[in-house]
């Protein structure tokens, strides 16, 4: 066991996977010589050369489009989009191409690739370095969306994503990169399955569903409330698509209360999907309003600290929402 940050874990897992499988290539902006703006690919070009760790022009659609082509020709690309905020020019390639190629070719072709992408707020990144993009992509059949929150899950899910024969959008919350440390087994190629949520704190009063940084904030809130006699169960969804309905429904069957927390603005956000599943398949269990705590419907997270703080859910806002639900 080694204690590592999220960013170290990503870098080390990529290194090990590239040692193991020579089909793997990495391509993106600043991934080679610079080792990535966050250091996720540090030292990889030095070790694997500039044809396996490729500095691309600043062109997201080409990064994903060429990765698709390389996958169609037998390589296993792990393209990086430097910030989720800049994934939009590649939307067509991800949605209309990568996610549809298996279906439109009746299973003849598939795109095995992992799109790595830092997302999320809390680092004063302002409008274009803080965005949440999961709702756009969880709507797309043919694409899997993973959003781990701990070093262990990052390593395990990255390996599962690499092994998956279909395209996976691998969302890395950028504030967890250096903030979150954890134990990662060494010398074992352990995996965390795609499509399985994890109960990270047991509780009987309220179920809290979160992913990314919000898992850690929700855990803090739950621990605070324990002193008040409220026991919240916290579930790290880990994979958003396909979603682990079973774990969600098992939890609300126990608590009868559901709080869904995410940074993305509330309308049409991923929380709506979780809420709809609970409403339609867990109706009989519910003993309080299915509640979403999410960003407000403003175009993006502003730069000023006061506004960023006002936008994002945090430990205290989550605790307050749990308190309100626990009253029912």
């Amino acid at each position: 066991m080694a204690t590592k940050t999220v960013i170290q874990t990503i870098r080390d897992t990529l290194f090990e996977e590239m040692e193991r499988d020579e089909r793997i290539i990495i391509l993106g902006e600043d991934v080679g010589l610079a080792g990535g703006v966050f250091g996720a690919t540090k030292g990889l070009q030095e070790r694997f050369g500039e044809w396996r760790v490729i500095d691309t022009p600043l062109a997201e659609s080409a990064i994903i489009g060429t990765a698709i082509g390389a996958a169609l020709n037998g390589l296993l690309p792990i393209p990086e989009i430097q910030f989720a905020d800049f994934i939009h020019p590649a939307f067509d390639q991800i949605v209309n191409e990568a996610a549809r190629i298996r279906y439109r070719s009746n299973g003849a072709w598939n795109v095995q690739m992992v799109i790595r992408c830092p997302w999320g707020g809390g680092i004063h990144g302002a409008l274009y370095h803080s965005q949440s993009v999961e709702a756009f992509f969880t709507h797309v059949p043919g694409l899997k969306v993973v959003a781990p929150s701990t070093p262990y899950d990052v390593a395990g899910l990255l390996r599962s994503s690499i092994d998956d024969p279909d395209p996976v959008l691998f969302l890395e919350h950028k504030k967890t990169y250096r903030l979150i440390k954890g134990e990662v087994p060494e010398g074992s190629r352990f995996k965390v399955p795609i499509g399985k949520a994890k109960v990270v704190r047991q509780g009987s009063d309220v179920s809290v569903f979160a992913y990314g940084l919000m898992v850690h904030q929700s855990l803090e809130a739950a621990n605070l409330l324990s002193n008040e006699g409220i026991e919240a169960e916290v579930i790290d969804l880990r994979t958003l698509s396909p979603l682990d309905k079973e774990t969600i429904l098992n939890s609300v069957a126990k608590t009868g209360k559901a709080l869904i927390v995410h940074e993305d603005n509330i309308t049409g956000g991923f929380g709506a999907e979780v809420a709809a599943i609970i409403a339609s398949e867990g109706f009989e269990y519910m003993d309080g309003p299915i509640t979403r705590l999410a960003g407000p419907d403003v175009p993006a997270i502003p730069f000023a600290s006061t506004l960023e703080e006002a936008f994002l859910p945090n430990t205290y806002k989550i605790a307050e929402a749990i308190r309100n639900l626990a009253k029912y």
Partner: protein
Amino acid sequence: MPGHYSYKPLKIVTGSSPIATQIPHAVGIALASKIKNEDVVTAVWFGEAASSKGDFHEGLNFAGVIKAPVIFICENNHYAISVPQNKQMAVPNVADKACAYGFPGVITDGNDVLDVYKAMKAAVERARSGEGPTLIECKTYRIVPHSSDDDESRYRTKVEVEEWKRKGPIERLRTYMQAQGIWSEEFENQVKSEALSIVDDATRFAEQASPPSPSSLLRHVFAEEAK
């Protein structure tokens, strides 16, 4: 939709409907060939309208940088459905755009089989020798409407269409072969009947195939369903 056909044994990749998205794919396929040290050249086709798209620029730009073994073939039929070339670009030739990417842009008479062959042969040799991509523009024409629902009289004259019909590549190749003494009526009939029987067989096969069962709707979304 039949437009998305592919054939893996011949390495014909499935195409979509959004314009130019296949161009970066071709660059990626060629990139993979280069990384795997395969002696393979990738060719990708598109119309002149695709050269207005971001994926055209992004794909050709990247291909130039990595000297990908890829040939970009533009079938310039002078119309994006109804919009003529002079409303699509301010340069007279799509091939002119290659100068921004650091590789040759070649203009060919797209209705002259041998002219296209010559350009392709040079481009293949260039790609194989590691020199990188070529953009080949084939000037041609669409002699029928864009679709069964397209009223072409709104944007082009009958005279123009008739003029291009006279430049048909098959007739021109026949004239050339006749002049070279390598054509015969028997040869033409044989080629025609072979082609017709291939098309007839395929048509029969398609017409006799039963429509897909509704239960197949959910297949091939992910690998799991394909088992």
